[in-house]
């Protein structure tokens, strides 16, 4: 088991000793350390209420840390961020193309360039035929794809995903897991993926950060050295089962620590 290593080489973002206390007095995070390398796929794994979403929102700048610091070694929030919420969070009054164009529109991007970027992002997630459809005309999985396309439209260096597939059925989730990995290998962006599913975290990530609940902090980090591309063969392999057992045990200990 690897030790927590906040001093990873060439981090795109690092959190040092971050704490978050809400107005209600709830301590969501305490002494939270995390460093994410450029191009890495990291999962934050923990039971619900362990502050993993809070950590993600702090990285995104949507929430301010009460203590500690978020550092961007390459300057400011220079790493442009894409965020995928647990719900698709699409504007119901706008078609898919307009939804995907939103970040570019808000940044006053040039018309011709943004049209091209939208077409590319929509095609990447396999929704090219549905650009003119309205969100409610699409299935849950397709809405999530549109949400991912919107996050990719600005070509962010860092993609933050907050349990994006938790509400989907298993078949759709597996398909989207595969497509996400394909996109990641193609684009080589950094991904921080919040989940409470051991199986999903092992399948997707290079490194899993297991968190303890109340207050949230890093319990341990586990590296999944299995090579990419990962596919159904990996999902059914003995290696995969072994990693899942290892991560499950760690999660069990992290949760027991809370009960004690």
């Amino acid at each position, binding site marked *: 088991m690897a030790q927590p290593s906040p001093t990873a080489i060439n981090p795109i973002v690092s959190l040092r000793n971050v704490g978050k206390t809400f107005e209600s007095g709830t301590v969501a995070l305490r002494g939270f350390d995390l460093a994410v390398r450029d191009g890495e796929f990291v999962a934050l794994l923990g039971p619900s209420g362990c502050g993993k979403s809070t950590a993600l929102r702090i990285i995104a700048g949507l929430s301010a840390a009460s203590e500690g610091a978020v550092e961007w070694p390459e300057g400011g929030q220079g790493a442009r961020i894409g965020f995928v919420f647990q719900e698709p969070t699409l*504007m119901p009054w706008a078609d898919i193309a307009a939804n995907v164009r939103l970040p570019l529109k808000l940044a006053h991007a040039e018309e011709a360039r943004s049209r091209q970027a939208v077409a590319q992002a929509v095609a990447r997630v396999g929704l090219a035929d549905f650009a003119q459809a309205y969100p409610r005309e699409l299935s849950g999985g397709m809405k999530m794809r549109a949400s991912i396309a919107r996050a990719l439209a600005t070509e962010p260096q860092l993609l933050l995903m907050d349990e994006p597939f938790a509400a989907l059925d298993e078949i759709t989730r597996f398909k989207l897991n595969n497509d996400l990995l394909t996109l990641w290998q193609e684009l080589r962006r950094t991904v921080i993926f919040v989940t409470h599913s051991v199986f999903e975290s092992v399948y997707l990530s290079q490194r899993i950060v297991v968190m303890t609940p109340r207050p949230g902090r890093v319990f341990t980090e586990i590296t999944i050295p299995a090579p990419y591309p990962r596919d159904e063969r990996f999902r059914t392999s003995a290696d995969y089962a072994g990693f899942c057992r290892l991560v499950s045990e760690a999660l069990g200990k992290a949760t027991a620590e809370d009960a004690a």
Partner: protein
Amino acid sequence: MSERALRIALPILVLALVIAAWHLVVRVFAIPVYVLPGPGLVLATLISDGALLMNSLWVTLTITFEGFLLAAAGGIALAIAFNQWRVFEYSFYPYAVILQVTPVVAIAPLLLIYLPQPLAVLACAWIVAFFPVLANTTLGLNSVDHNLLALFELYKASRWQVLWNLKLPSALPQMLAGLRIAGGLSLIGAVVAEIAAGSAGAGSGLAYRIAESGYRLNIPRMFAALLLLSLAGVAIFFALSALSHLALRRWHESELRRER
């Protein structure tokens, strides 16, 4: 019969029965015209007094329409101002409520003292109609999806971008519901003010015709004018419903047929 056909046929059947009963009651009990004219006589009066009544209808509709437009513009503008500047909302919202809960019948005679009559009538139409627009639009502007707000914040949207691209479109269903109520209310406001003014002896709108015909015991004309007012109200309601349908049919639940 299909549900749609029933929805049209049944009200027409009820109307036919009521008219037949009305006719019979007047005939059988030989009710004098100055107490209750039969439906045939009302229709005949509508035709014989057509020019006069149409003229009055036009006057009333013009006031109603102007009152409605001012109420729509004022209600929406005020709601936006309330939403953008909290201090403004705290300062003025109570007075908007007071203006609304004070019966307009009681305000009309006062307004007639201080304002020239057409302006007083218009002011009454505005007072009763603007509040539902204000209240509904305010509710809509405050019910924006929190994740969408976070998304706009993530992309560093200016407050005007948030207002224009997020809050206003997302408030559209409530805003249209407010306008639909305001349409009927501005007719009521105009009628109340005309009746109040009518006793002072000037005016030419439909409500004034009703008051005037009452003094002259011209009961058939009262009924004819009432019929026109009622039809005008129905027309306003349908026009605004059609507008709402056109604006929302692609995306809002209220305008979508449920699949079974």
